[in-house]
């Protein structure tokens, strides 16, 4: 009985290995001689018989998968048949022990030979790729690319990064809603700080009549111009809360005259003209960071690749996707202006592969052949694919830490909406409105809207059918956005999404103790250990928090998302970061 079971187990092992075409028969022989009382002769002949059904089935499947090349069939099989007959004739006179030793020696020789071939092959490929790449990049060899090409082939080169999470996309809520124009509201409250940098200085007085597109606050230092988003009368300048803090807001009452004041259209602008216009039109990074694009373009480093970030990896948000579907030509032209401004050689528009329509729409424009330097790259759908450094890694293979600048590596990243805004700015439109997604399970009609800056969230919620039991109102996406306590908050240039979460979706659980499961470390795209940063920060040991990488955190929220104990890891890492920065300033 037990002997039969052992035979079955041996058969299973041989079948699996043999089915892969890795010599299951060869495996059968040592298994048989080791575990059963079979002689070497017997084992080898059993192997020969077992080989027939195994190979027939495996061959059938391989032919079906088109993995078989019949070109050399006859050249191999005819001599093989003849010599195998001779071999079988001779082997019956050889002693079992001798046969065993010969068989072992044969296997070892084969293994060693195979190993040598593999090593030689890898060394050859490595040298070749290294040679090709050194001409390309001044910043040393791109090892990631080399290893991936050797071991996985070009096809698997990257298009993704390590770790990360797969949250439920929820894009279906607003994905098919076409971009609508939001009617100009009665009042707008335009914050003077809509970007990262010093707040702008208001240049209008109370009671002054302004037109849509008129400059109302002038950039200070590395700041950004702010424009009136509707035509009307300035009613006041007062401090109001924004989603992230407090700043002066310029309040304009709509007079419904519809007056506009635009720049002149630039035809075939030069490099300097583009940078000047982008700075003048007050364009900031529309992805959420709000870094002034003009300042970004004034880089001294030589830029090779300009990446347009269309990943839109956060759940719920669809504004970039709708832009891709409805305005592909404008996006491509805008990205070419951006590339021209920094003399970049090529443009890569990176889109996650869960937006096939967006990719098709962009490719449809590219297929005309007018834009040879632009490429659309489909990336794996994974959060946070849209983080600048992760995106650069996915597209080019450069590992750039969160503490370094990407332009040192000859790469710049800008959001797809920024490219669109650059195009409209060259056409003459200053940056005073943007496409926004109003979504969430707690809103009745999720929509994609063109919203003038300074519109109150309450106006948007009313326009989209009203609030249906929201427990959280979030300015931005669910992973990195900011919760707000009141819906009387104004939109800015960087507000890409207004999200209303019902009780069922929102995260209101109380945190439990850390069970040290390490899921946060396995989710962290920056390869940190969030649980230790959290632990040591709470214990007041900032040095250890820094050791485990607090300063390299990109605050994507992956760790907190996967935490089974529901610990707010990002919140404490943010605090640790702030404390560390404060400490380094003191020194």
């Amino acid at each position, binding site marked *: 009985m*037990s*002997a039969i*079971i*052992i035979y079955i187990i041996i058969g299973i092992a041989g079948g699996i290995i043999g089915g892969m075409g890795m010599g299951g028969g060869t495996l059968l022989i040592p298994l048989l001689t*080791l*575990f059963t009382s079979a002689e070497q002769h017997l084992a080898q002949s059993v192997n020969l018989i077992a080989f027939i059904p195994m190979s027939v089935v495996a061959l059938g499947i391989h032919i079906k998968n088109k993995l078989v090349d019949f070109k050399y069939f006859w050249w191999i099989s005819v001599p093989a048949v003849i010599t195998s007959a001779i071999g079988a004739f001779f082997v019956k006179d050889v002693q079992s022990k001798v046969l065993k030793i010969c068989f072992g020696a044969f296997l070892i020789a084969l293994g060693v030979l195979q190993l040598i071939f593999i090593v030689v092959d890898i060394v050859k490929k490595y040298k070749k790729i290294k040679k090709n790449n050194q001409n390309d990049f001044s910043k040393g060899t791109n090892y990631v690319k080399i290893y991936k090409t050797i071991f996985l082939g070009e096809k698997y080169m990257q298009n993704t990064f*390590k770790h990360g*999470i797969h*949250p*439920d996309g929820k894009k279906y809520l607003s994905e098919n809603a076409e971009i609508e124009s939001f009617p100009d509201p009665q009042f707008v409250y335009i914050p003077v700080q809509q970007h990262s940098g010093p707040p702008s200085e208001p240049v209008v007085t109370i009671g002054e009549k302004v037109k849509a597109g008129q400059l109302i606050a002038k950039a200070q230092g590395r700041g950004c111009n702010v424009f009136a988003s509707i035509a009307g009368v300035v009613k006041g300048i007062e401090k109001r809360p924004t989603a992230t803090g407090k700043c002066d807001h310029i309040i304009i009452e709509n007079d419904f005259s519809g007056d506009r004041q635009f720049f002149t259209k630039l035809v075939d602008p030069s490099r300097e003209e583009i940078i000047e216009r982008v700075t003048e039109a007050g364009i900031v990074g529309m992805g959420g960071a709000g870094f002034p694009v003009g300042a970004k373009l004034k880089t001294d480093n030589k830029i090779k690749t300009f990446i347009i970030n269309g990943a839109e990896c956060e*759940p719920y948000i669809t504004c970039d996707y709708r832009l891709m579907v409805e305005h592909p030509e404008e996006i491509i032209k805008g990205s070419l202006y951006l590339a021209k401004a920094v003399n970049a050689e090529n443009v890569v528009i990176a889109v996650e592969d869960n937006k096939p329509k967006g990719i098709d729409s962009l490719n449809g424009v590219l297929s005309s052949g007018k834009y040879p330097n632009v490429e659309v790259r489909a990336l794996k759908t994974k959060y946070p694919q849209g983080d600048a450094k992760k995106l650069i890694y996915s597209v080019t293979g*450069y*590992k750039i*830490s*969160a503490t370094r600048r990407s332009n040192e590596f000859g790469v710049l990243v800008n959001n797809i909406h920024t490219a669109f805004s650059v195009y409209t700015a060259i056409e003459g439109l200053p940056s005073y409105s943007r496409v926004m997604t109003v979504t969430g399970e707690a809103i009745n009609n999720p929509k994609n809207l063109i919203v003038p800056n300074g519109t109150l969230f*309450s106006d948007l919620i009313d326009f989209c059918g*009203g*609030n*249906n039991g*929201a427990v*959280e*109102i*979030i300015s931005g996406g669910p*992973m*990195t*956005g900011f*919760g*707000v*306590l*009141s819906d009387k908050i104004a939109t800015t240039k960087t507000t890409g999404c207004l999200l209303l*979460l*019902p009780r069922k979706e*929102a*995260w*209101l659980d*109380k*945190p*439990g*103790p*850390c*069970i*040290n*499961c*390490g899921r946060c*470390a396995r989710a962290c795209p920056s*390869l*940190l*250990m969030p*649980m230790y940063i959290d632990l040591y920060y709470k214990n007041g040991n900032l040095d250890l928090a820094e050791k485990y*990488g607090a300063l390299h955190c990109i*605050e994507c*929220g992956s760790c*907190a*998302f996967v*935490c*089974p*104990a529901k610990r707010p890891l*990002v*919140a404490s890492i*943010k605090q640790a970061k702030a404390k560390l920065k404060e400490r380094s300033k003191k020194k």
Partner: protein
Amino acid sequence: MSESENIKNIQNSSNNPNENNTEQLYITSAPHITKKGNSTRRVMIDVLIALCPSAIAAIYYFGYMVAINIVLCCVSCFGFELLYNCIKEKKFDKETVQSASVWDLSCLVTGVILALNLPTSFVIWEKVPILGMIIADILGSLVAIIIVKMLFGGIGRNFANPAAVGRIFLFLCFASAFKAVAADGIGLEPTTGATWLSQGIADRPVNAKQLLDMFLGNVGSASVGETCVPAILLGYIYLCIRKVIDWKLPLYIVGSVAVFSLLFEGLIVSHLPAKELFMNMLANILSGGLLFGAVFMATDYATSPNTAIGLVIYGIAIGFITVLIRVFASYPEGMSFAIVIMNIITPLIDKYIYPKPFGFVKEKKNKNKPETKEAAK
């Protein structure tokens, strides 16, 4: 648990401007969504489900005493943790019970693993044999929950696997009572109590029939849960599918036991032919608490390293120490010792082996030197 830990401030908005069909607004820090069906309790329930096949197999092979053991251990583990919570809070009301840490069910996991780590006969007092069993269960739970887990800060802060320490404590205290028991499940021939591991290393040849018995679990054993390999594998597969444990760690341990047992036994008992050495290696893997420990005990979250390289070191070291104890020490089995030793070394591994942040570049020393010199001047 102190509420000061609670950074994610949940404030209520008192002046909510929207009156019509709106709920109270909350403000929380990002991220605002979390993975569905993911909680500490869910993890523990998964482990309990994975332990089910092993428990059923143990009851099948060793009789109803195993069931009594499991219930006793679970109840006492649960009770001790609840008691500890109440004593710590100095309150014994309903609220304290409701907010106690027992509801994450990790104490039940400890209880089941401890019960599956004990033999069925545990004779301390000859006249009433079952008394020894009850004492063993309660004492083991006390050590596991109170000393190893709660005194060190509760879940996630235990310095070693509670169940493993509980077992070792009982093993060392009542070494004579800790005898291997015979498997006499329903419809099976009873086998001898002496296990393969407790026989002398030089004279324990195994044949295929014995290996099969070891695989199926139909052999005498010192602890009931570890004999049935298919049941353990079922649990392993379930845990891997649910992504509760890292699937690689048990493989590291088993692989390292295979390599080292082949090496050591080959060195000591050099007259054995290769075939028997190979069979001995398989017997080494299949017998004792190796597989059960590798799947359910070594993978304990709090006491295993959190990096891939750390796990490799941890797994290989467990296998190495196990074989070392099996081959050279006077104890027949060393899995739980190996696990506890490596549990204690884990913080050291995590101290020196931690991942480099994405794109981390070591600053060149040449750059720093002139700066420090200038600063010194």
